[in-house]
């Protein structure tokens, strides 16, 4: 079958899988950013022990492959009474892994903020939590947009690993089609192109966001 024939025959199947990939990537990215912010806050409420715990957490997730948390949650949660669907397990693993990297990115941005901002916030009487929410966090997120974009692209590529726990995203779909029709080249070439489109689209989006935010300041 020609490539064009392939695309027209299996286009809808691919779009379905693409939807899954996109949804998981978006939700896991948001979750990772929220989790990264939470990890940033832990030293503020738990002092030095909190800082050490977060540091250990980050080191663990930086030095282990992302497949391990995926397997841990997918195979382990049913054993402790939480038989969640595969996509949720995979998404949670991606959030935990990428949250560690996000917290490192955000911590770097916090260090880049002028000390004056913290003093000014205190001098107008903002509580630490309000100061964080209204002064620090917006600036940190703005500074971090390029690095966060990078991390989101990595997360997007990691969604392909969810095919190992039977989530029907793009890579799984390509494997299924290969097994059904034996046409490996076509199946995986189309998927590779789709991933390239997703990655480029994400990069364009984050670059536009970065430009938009800088102008408004």
């Amino acid at each position, binding site marked *: 079958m020609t490539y064009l024939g392939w695309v027209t025959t299996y286009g809808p199947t691919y779009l379905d899988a693409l939807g899954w990939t996109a949804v998981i990537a978006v939700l896991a990215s948001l979750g990772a950013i929220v989790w990264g912010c939470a990890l940033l806050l832990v030293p503020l409420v738990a002092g030095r022990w909190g800082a050490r715990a977060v540091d250990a957490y980050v*080191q663990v997730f930086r*030095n282990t*492959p992302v497949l391990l948390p995926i397997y841990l949650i997918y195979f382990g949660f049913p054993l402790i009474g939480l038989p969640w669907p595969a996509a949720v397990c995979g998404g949670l693993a991606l959030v935990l892994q990428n949250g560690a990297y996000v917290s490192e990115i955000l911590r770097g941005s916090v260090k880049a903020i002028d000390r004056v901002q913290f003093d000014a916030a205190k001098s107008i009487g903002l509580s630490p939590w309000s100061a964080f929410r209204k002064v620090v966090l917006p600036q940190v997120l703005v500074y971090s947009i390029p690095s966060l974009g990078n991390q989101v692209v990595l997360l997007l590529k990691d969604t392909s690993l969810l095919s190992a726990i039977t989530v029907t995203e793009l890579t799984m779909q*390509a494997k299924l089609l290969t097994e059904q029709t034996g046409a490996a*080249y076509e199946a995986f070439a189309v*998927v590779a192109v789709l991933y390239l489109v997703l990655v480029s689209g994400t990069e364009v989006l984050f670059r536009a966001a970065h430009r938009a935010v800088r102008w408004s300041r």
Partner: protein
Amino acid sequence: MNASTLTLLLEGAGVSLALALTSIAPATILGAALTALGFSRFAALRVLYRLYVYVVRGTPLLVLALLIFYALPALDLRTGPYIAGALVLTLYVGALFAEVFRGGVLAIPRPQWESAKSLGLPPAAMLKKVIAPLVVRYTLPPYINVCVMTVKASSVLSIISVWELTLAAREIIERTLAVFTVLGVAAAIYFIMCFGLDRLGRRLERRLMARGFAGEPV
């Protein structure tokens, strides 16, 4: 967790490490070659560099691995998963090294280029005595980082049935359902390998810097 499962996991770790190390060497050469392409006089070669890096970095490693895993038998090269895995890892990490080396070359201060040219050095000597030492000095931390990423990336190859630590752990789990202990130990082994590699790299970095390796004042 008994002795036999631990031995199995450690064997898998050995395979992971071997896979990573045997991919890093050719990947370094590939990366250096690609970087040279990226700085070529000919626009076509530069475009080739950009295209290669774009495709290899924009596609998930698993998709590249499956492509090569299924494509090799189609080209009548029935080499088995290990060769396919090492090949894919080399191609992938080569692109990462190419970007690292490119950053290193771009970081060389302009005065270095100008003094090399004013000395009338031929390209080979310039490469050996000026470019290479500086690039090594600048790129050692990200280079070690990519080496650690290679060890972690080897776990992805478990999905194309390369038997290494992650696949060993998964097989044990499917047999015994001891999910948390087995994966905990596997994670610890990966941690020791990656963290150890990182520390080794940092020690190497310190020793190079102590000797005033590339022109900076000691």
